[in-house]
């Protein structure tokens, strides 16, 4: 409780500092975070998802001349973000755009940006990305070219890859503000230490599972699965949509093949879904991907909460 209060105070202070230093931020009528294009003298950095935003904020620090780190207001999953014209303007005015890479930013295909300001934080482990086995592509005519789905993109769910992405963020910030290299490096070390801790906690939590199968409500946990050697199977269920009869039949078939006791959800599933799963011996565990900015808490708090939920379910 005390820890929670401290976290809230810390976040409140952070927001206060943010508002104090980023005097140009204003909320538009659409709720989009708008940055005026007045030159503040500080480099402007835009992150394409919340983890990168968090990493960048941690690494950049809070000094008066620290780069301005911005995460646009995205109502849904940032992976399916369609930037508005105001948000495109924000991206075009950025000195650095931190990309998750691995095909995460589908909007890059049709937004006009200056390539030299884009930075792919997963380029360093491009050979280590997970190719998707099941993808639905299409072609025009029997001999037409395919449209490929590609690779899994929730790389940050693997703390070891998240560390590499954080390192990439630090490198990018260093090139932008070389005079603050020492600050960035120190902050990076602290961040990576925390990621190591989370990694260790998740490893301990998943170790209990052993070879036991685990279900994923949606195919977003590939990197988690690989990192901790999980015997996992993905469904295509949404937390806010009750599975139909056919889906339950398929589920039962799957359960016979993979007798899992745990299903990970990105968000709290419908009580009816959770109850029915529970009847079949499968416990629903919310394991948030933290891809978007939380209303409260922060990245590590989400991960800590994930660990807590998991431990609780597995123990």
């Amino acid at each position: 409780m005390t820890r929670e209060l401290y976290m809230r105070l810390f976040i409140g202070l952070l927001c206060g500092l943010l508002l104090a230093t980023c005097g140009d931020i204003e909320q538009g009528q659409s709720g989009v975070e708008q940055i005026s294009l007045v030159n503040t003298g500080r480099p402007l950095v835009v992150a394409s998802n919340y983890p990168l935003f968090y990493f960048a904020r941690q690494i950049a620090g809070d000094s008066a001349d620290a780069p301005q780190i911005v995460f646009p207001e995205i109502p849904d999953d940032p992976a399916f973000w369609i930037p508005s014209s105001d948000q495109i303007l924000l991206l075009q005015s950025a000195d650095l755009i931190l990309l998750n890479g691995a095909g995460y930013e589908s909007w890059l295909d049709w937004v006009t940006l200056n390539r030299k300001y884009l930075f792919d934080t997963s380029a360093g482990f491009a050979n280590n990305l997970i190719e998707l086995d099941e993808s639905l592509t299409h072609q025009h005519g029997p001999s037409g070219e395919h449209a490929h789905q590609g690779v899994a993109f929730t790389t940050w769910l693997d703390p070891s890859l998240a560390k590499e992405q954080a390192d990439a963020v630090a490198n990018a910030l260093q090139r932008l503000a070389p005079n603050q290299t020492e600050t960035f490096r120190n902050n990076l070390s602290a961040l990576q230490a925390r990621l190591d801790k989370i990694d260790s906690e998740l490893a301990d939590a998943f170790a209990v599972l052993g070879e036991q199968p685990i279900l994923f409500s949606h195919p977003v946990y590939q990197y988690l699965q690989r990192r901790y050697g999980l015997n996992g199977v993905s469904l295509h269920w949404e937390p806010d949509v009750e599975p139909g009869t056919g889906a339950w039949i398929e589920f039962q078939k799957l359960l016979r093949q993979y007798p899992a006791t745990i299903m990970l959800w990105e968000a709290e599933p419908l009580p009816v879904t959770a109850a029915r799963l529970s009847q079949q011996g499968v416990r629903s565990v919310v394991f948030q991907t933290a891809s978007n900015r939380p209303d409260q808490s922060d990245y590590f708090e989400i991960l800590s909460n994930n660990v807590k939920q998991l431990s609780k379910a597995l123990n």
Partner: protein
Amino acid sequence: MSGAWYLGWRYLAFHKIKCATLMASITLMLFLPAATRVLVSDSAAALTARANNTPLLLGAAGSRLELVLNSLYFQTGQPAAVSNKTLEQVQATGLGEFIPLNTRFQSLGHPIVGTTLDYFAFRGLKLAEGRQLGMLGECVIGAAAAVQQDIGIGDYLVSSPETVFDIAGVYPLKMTVVGVLEPSGSADDDAIFVDIRTTWIIQGLGHGHQDLSRPEARAAILNRKEGVITANAAVSQHTEISAHNIADFHFHGNSSDFPLTSIIAVPPDEKSATLLRGRYLSDEQDLQLLVPSTVLDELLETVFTVQNYVVLGLAMLGLATVAVIILVFMLSQQLRRGEFHTLSRIGASRTYIGLLVASELVFIFVGSTLLATLLILGMKQYALQILQGFLTL
């Protein structure tokens, strides 16, 4: 003797057609060679300035002049395309900034220039109204194009189809105008700028259509096998890109194979430029890297030679015109003998009559010279617009 000037003036005013014809002949005789020189030199300066501001140009091997004229002035036929892979490779060298161009298409007679945002900073183009390109399907148009087509922010332009009856051909794409540029006095004023990927969509390398995985798209599916949906020709494609359907747009094939007309290379220093030139020096390559100003200089050398011949021809014509004018004057004086006789009888001296004749000559020559001078000054003022008008014909 001022009476002689007055009588001379009245004579010319009475014989307006003769006077106008003589003045026109002399004006043209003076104007044409000077105008030729002015037009050629100003045009050369404008062409050269643009070429000088373009350090290096990378394109497919072939006609150097065609590559330069097409890439700098968006004119002439289409040079052979280079692949986007060439751009990726040259960018990977880190030897400068590289700006792709794709100028294959046009709309309402204006070239559609597919490029990146770097192009605008490179050419120093500024927006007069609206905003910069934000996404595919948007266009920013040059000042002259906006005026000619009476188009502004929010209006639409449609790319011209290359074929009407070929169902596999290039289809028109409706593009939204989001910005109008300030006049730059260059070929950019006449162009329509789009994201280079928009030109690939115009070409049919990318498109947008209904989601084939949805039940509503059943009629457009040929077959579905092992995670691959094969669409038939019934799939309806979007003819414009908007925020509502942008997510439906995608490209087929490998983007590295997609075509470009050329790549503008902007090395940061001479060493990088030399390294770049060295990379593409081999004749065996299907690429050429050239210095536009060198190519233009070769063209202009020919132009100046032709100009000299033209001026020589005009000078010969001028001499002939002078001879004819002298003949006309002599005949005129013959016809006026009676008048001079009368004046002499009344009391006019030979000097007076000489002045009368001279006044006619002076008025015509001075008038013609002034007119020719005004025309030349006007030509100098508007040489670039005339050149652009000529280039857009």
